């Protein structure tokens, strides 16, 4: 073997040792994170609208019928140092006001959305990790670990803890392990470990929107009947027209609200694909294909603009 062959062989061998995996496409992770932030804001707004509508109907019903168990409105302190609940300790929770349960759902969903945003932020930090950023990375990992523990506690059996992949073990102690994995197998392999969790959390998000749609239909069921009845009984043409206009406005508002919930639902359903898109972008070196998710989030914004315009009318 001559010296030229030795140099050539050395170059080939050296190439095999240095990672040949492509770098992360620019802005993909930031775009992913920003989309998740938007999704979190819009889903929280959706449950706020459901809360407001239920509270309005609750007040009207109370004024009209005066039928309420005052004890169902009292907070009880039944367990831990900071725990509280509405109604009797260990009592039937179905008796509590619906708006209170919606508020709880909204708080749970906010926690879920915060976790997804924290995950995207963690990926950004992790992607740029070096010895100076190690402390930040560990703090982020610890934050995610705490959120996962809280979410597991809140969602109970609805969350399949066996299916959340690396989310179930994340914390300060696994950062080194993840960094070693990144060095050995690339960033895509690390994201792949979290992918089952993203799928599971997205499922919970989409279910929250389905439950909220039930709420909207129920509120409509409460409110529209008195208008329809008024239209059937009213003999004065002018008054009847006003009732018809009110009903049409209610119909428009309800359909737009359901449309918004449908868009948010679709965005949660698109989330696992977007996460998989990041992985394949990392493997191919191309820009991540987040169009589907971004498209859904833009559709939510458009639906909300319409909804707010109808509400203002």
């Amino acid at each position, binding site marked *: 073997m001559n010296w030229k062959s030795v140099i050539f062989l050395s170059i080939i061998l050296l190439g095999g040792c240095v990672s040949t995996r492509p770098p992360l496409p620019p802005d993909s992770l930031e775009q992913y994170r920003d989309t998740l932030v938007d999704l979190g804001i819009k889903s929280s707004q959706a449950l706020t609208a459901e809360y407001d509508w239920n509270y309005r109907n609750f007040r009207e019903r109370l004024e009209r019928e005066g039928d309420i168990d005052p004890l169902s409105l009292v907070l009880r302190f039944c367990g831990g140092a900071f725990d509280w609940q509405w109604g009797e300790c260990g009592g039937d929770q*179905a008796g509590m006001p619906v708006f209170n349960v919606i508020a709880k759902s909204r708080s749970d969903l906010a926690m879920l959305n915060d976790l997804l945003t924290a995950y995207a932020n963690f990926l950004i930090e992790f992607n740029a990790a070096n010895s100076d950023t190690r402390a930040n990375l560990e703090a982020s990992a610890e934050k995610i670990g705490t959120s996962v523990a809280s979410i597991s506690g809140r969602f109970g059996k609805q969350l399949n803890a066996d299916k959340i992949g690396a989310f179930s073990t994340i914390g300060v102690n696994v950062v080194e392990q993840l960094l070693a994995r990144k060095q050995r197998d690339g960033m895509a392999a690390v994201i792949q470990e979290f992918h089952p969790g993203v799928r599971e959390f997205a499922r919970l998000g989409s*279910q929250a929107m389905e*439950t909220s749609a*039930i709420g909207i239909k*129920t509120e409509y*069921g409460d409110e529209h009947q008195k208008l329809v009845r008024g239209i*059937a009984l009213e003999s004065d043409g002018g008054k009847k027209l006003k009732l018809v206009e009110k009903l049409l406005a209610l119909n428009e508002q309800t359909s737009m609200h359901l449309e918004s919930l449908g868009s948010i639902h679709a965005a949660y359903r698109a989330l696992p694909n977007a996460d998989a898109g990041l992985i394949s972008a990392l493997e191919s070196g191309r820009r991540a294909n987040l169009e589907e998710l971004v498209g859904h989030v833009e559709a939510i914004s458009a639906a909300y603009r319409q909804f707010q315009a109808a509400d203002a009318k």
Partner: protein
Amino acid sequence: MTHEEKLELVNFLIFLRGKLQSLAIRLILMGEDPAKVDETEKSLAGEIRKLRINMMLDWQGDAAELMANLRQINEQAQRHVRELKNAQQRTAKLASILGLIDRGMKSVTDLLV
């Protein structure tokens, strides 16, 4: 009971409530008193409310059997509603419809126990 089954059940009860509300309006237009229908509709609304809370707080039960039962009840009730228009014994027909709805609601209430 899966989330999808819960959704199907609650959506069906909402649909059933809509039918009762329409029935009340139809009775008003016929010059009849809708009080009994209103009472049943109010009870159904109460069950939907409980299920909605339960759904948010996570609930369990046997959906498949219940759904089959409710569908059967609805078919019978709809048949009676169609007959109501020309019925000679309207009060008796109405009582049958409300009886069927009561049976359906009892199935849902039993699920929550």
